[in-house]
């Protein structure tokens, strides 16, 4: 894994790699180099499988983070590339020509985060939600509890307990041990 990163580091701008495990590494790359790195990983380094393409909403920094996770089946290595996008613009670069499955991920991101990928097939069609007119629901400025309270009727009589105090009261009076 480290050899691959050394090899890439000569030619591309890589951020500090974060090793979650020996075979799982996250690294931030520049957006304009993403395509070149992905292509090289796929064709030269043997990362043939796109495991995941997902997004994180960094609302405080006004940014979206796209995570492209690619996997080398033979060497059992997983490398995740992070790309930061501007939150206002929210336009990514499609990679459906590298991995056809990416088109589905991009449709999902379009619907759930509102990140659009120009050129990706059927990206503007409905994916899971039908007739959704509100904010994309996975954005953090979309409050799902407030939305559900304003949309669906509650049944009166529902109470909420704090799990810790509730369980202490009903089942485990002497928890933590000796605290009585």
């Amino acid at each position: 894994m480290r050899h691959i990163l050394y090899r890439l580091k000569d030619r591309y701008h890589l951020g500090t790699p974060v090793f979650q495990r020996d075979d799982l590494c996250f690294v931030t790359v520049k957006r304009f180099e993403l395509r070149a790195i992905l292509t090289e990983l796929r064709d030269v380094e043997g990362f043939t499988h796109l495991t995941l393409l997902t997004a994180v909403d960094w609302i405080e920094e006004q940014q979206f983070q796209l995570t492209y996770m690619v996997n080398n089946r033979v060497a059992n290595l997983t490398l995740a590339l992070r790309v930061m996008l501007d939150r206002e613009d929210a336009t990514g670069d499609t990679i459906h020509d590298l991995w056809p499955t990416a088109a589905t991920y991009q449709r999902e991101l379009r619907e759930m985060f509102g990140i659009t990928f120009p050129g990706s097939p059927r990206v503007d069609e409905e994916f899971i939600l039908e007739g959704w007119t509100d904010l994309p629901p996975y954005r953090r400025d979309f409050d799902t509890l407030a939305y559900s309270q304003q949309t669906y009727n509650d049944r009166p009589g529902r109470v909420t307990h704090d799990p810790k105090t509730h369980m202490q009261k009903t089942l485990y009076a002497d928890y933590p041990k000796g605290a009585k």
Partner: protein
Amino acid sequence: MKDVDDKFLKNPDTEVPLREELRPRKVTTPDGQEIDIDPLRDYFCEAKPKVHPKAYSKIVEDFYNWARANSLWILGFGTGCGAIEMRPLMTPRFDAYRYGIQWRPTPRQANLLVISGYLSVKTLKRAIRAYEQMPQPKYVMGLGSCTINGGMYWDSYNTIKRLDDYLPVDMYVAGCMPRPEALLHGFMELKRVIKEGKGEGANLYAENFDQYKANQKAVIRDWDMPDYNW
């Protein structure tokens, strides 16, 4: 951390445009004729549901109710995780067949619609269609706390919280998820309700039709089907 963002307001109702293939339009037939088609009207019967009276004689009605209770045909339609709890009922361990309960593949032949768990808005649309296509008298059973008050999906943006806003429910089975034994017990209770002649959900639906439709249309934003599909 605050649970609810007080400032958040949901988008006031924007009309969702009808899908293109469902819009009324003019078509030219192969032999050059111009005809108007309206897919929503052409394929479906639009009549509102009727309230069907009971049989005149009480004895006959009781006899019918006994037959209905002992021949519950369930529509094979699973919505949430509860669908997995229905399957064991067919196995040797629980064997619901001995109570006259069977699974039918088509709504036309089913009497009981089991909403087995959480119901997303997208599925609700299908559930309503299936329910409306069933012949009267028909019964609805809500499975699990999701159908009662939202359950663990109480803050979800696309699952409904109260099933009885949208469909007339005859029987709830509580639990998350209810075990097959609880389901069997629910069936037995439903039988009792039917035998007492209280299983009149379909007539309730027909009486409060406008109310139910208003509720349904409030959450189903892209209403692309007729108001009542028989």
